[in-house]
């Protein structure tokens, strides 16, 4: 074995020993009292869950592992109509701010390059070409294709959705990062913004009467007596459909961004669990080393997949918002 591998093995072994220190008393207790076995298992599971949850949920502390942590400013919560609102800057708020800044910065740099390009100072370069490709694709193939005539007004919204969500997704993948879009409140807020825009667009395009028809719709040629029954059944369905689309939008993004993290953390957890076998005989060392290498490989693979999913989910969100706006504007 080479010295680098030796050293990493040693550090993993010490890590594993610490895991055992925590698990050993519980395991011993479990062997003594069968009845307590469940509780012990529960403890071990809780430990894994805690690490995972700790990594995924929001908090007021921004941790940098061994390099310390930053306590983010906390503000007193206040009540609005019986709802407690706490505007403290949490990790997810901070990363949303980063996403907002990165989105603006990216687009601003692209805009400046465009401007310089028009003044004939510079040939189109890498970043500008990339952003322009996204911009044109989103504008022509997503917004205009789905909304049609009059879709220009929704171009800024959809492009902002795309880049804002993309950055929020990607920022969760860097070390010490946090995935704001892995928080249901964030995705719900984005989805509700989408809902407001979709319904407003529908109202403006269809007028009050036309908009009312998106809920209270009677198919033409329906016999008189069936009308109230149809309305009674279909109006709630239509209403639910409006909100279920939006809920799906929120939950899709949230679940996708959270699930990937859990999968990666589960693989990392395998290292902590089976890594302890390293140094316990030839068999133990073999299994432990194989698990460590395999988990790292799989975690790396899932990481790559996550990068793709970050892009995909931003695209899907932008795309669906366009589709919904297009659908309601062309309803009936």
């Amino acid at each position, binding site marked *: 074995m080479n010295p680098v591998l030796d050293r990493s093995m040693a550090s993993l072994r010490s890590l594993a020993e610490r895991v055992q220190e925590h698990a050993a008393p519980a395991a011993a207790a479990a062997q003594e009292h069968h009845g307590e076995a469940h509780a012990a298992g529960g403890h071990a599971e809780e430990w894994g869950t805690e*690490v995972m949850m700790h990594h995924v949920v929001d908090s007021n502390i921004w941790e940098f*592992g061994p390099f310390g942590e930053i306590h983010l400013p906390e503000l007193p919560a206040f009540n609005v109509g019986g709802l407690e609102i706490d*505007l403290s800057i949490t990790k997810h708020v901070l990363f949303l701010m980063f996403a907002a800044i990165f989105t603006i910065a990216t*687009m*601003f740099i692209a805009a400046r390059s465009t401007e310089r390009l028009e003044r004939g100072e510079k040939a189109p370069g890498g970043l500008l070409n990339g952003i322009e490709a996204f911009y044109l694709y989103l504008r022509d193939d997503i917004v205009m294709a789905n909304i049609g005539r009059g879709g220009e007004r929704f*171009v800024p919204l959809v492009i*902002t959705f795309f880049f804002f969500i993309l950055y929020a997704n990607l920022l969760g993948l860097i*070390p010490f990062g946090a995935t704001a879009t892995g928080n249901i409140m*964030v995705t719900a*807020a984005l989805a509700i913004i989408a809902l407001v825009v979709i319904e407003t667009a529908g109202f403006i395009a269809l007028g009050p009467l036309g908009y009312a028809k998106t809920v209270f719709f009677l198919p033409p040629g329906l016999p008189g007596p069936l009308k109230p029954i149809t309305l009674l059944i279909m109006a709630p369905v239509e209403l639910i459909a409006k909100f279920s689309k939006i809920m799906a939008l929120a939950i899709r993004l949230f679940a996708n961004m959270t699930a990937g993290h859990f999968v990666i953390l589960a693989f990392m957890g395998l290292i902590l669990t089976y890594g302890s076998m390293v140094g316990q005989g030839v068999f133990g060392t073999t299994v432990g080393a194989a698990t460590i290498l395999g988990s790292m490989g799989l975690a790396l693979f899932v990481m790559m997949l996550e990068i793709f999913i970050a892009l995909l989910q931003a695209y899907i969100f932008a795309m669906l918002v366009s589709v919904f706006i297009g659908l309601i504007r062309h309803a009936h």
Partner: protein
Amino acid sequence: MMRSAGVAGCFALAAPPALAAQAETGIFSLNLGLFVWTVVLFVLTLLVLAKWVFPLIAGGLEQRHAKIQGAIDDALSARDEAKGLLSQQEAALEAARSEAREMLENARQHADGLRKEMLEEARAQQAQMLDDARREIGHERERLRDEIRRDAVDLALAASERLIRARLDAEENRRLVHEFVSDV
């Protein structure tokens, strides 16, 4: 990420109480503050981009579009113009060619006529000269004949004179002189 997860694991081991304190904010915790923050940040981003940034990009793209379209239009019109010029040139060339052909034809005809004329003239001249020569020869022959006749008479007279002088006596000689004179 791997490192951060691993480090998070270390952290969790080192400080379980802190972890437990944070665990109360679960994965589905309804933090309305975060909701408000998200809406505010997103709307702010959207407003900034829509007001100051997107018009620049869209304008730039539009300008470039117009520029490229203009360049294409220019190229097309230049091509049409070139095509027109080319056909014009071709027509001019064709005209020049046919003119040249015509001139050549004219020249040839003219030359033919000239040649024929000259030939006729030469022929006529030749005939004239031939005639003249013939007439001259006729005259000359007549003149010569007369001259010869005269000379012959003279010679005969001289000879006869000499003969007469020499042998005027002989009958035979007389007959010869007579014969000679009648032959001339």
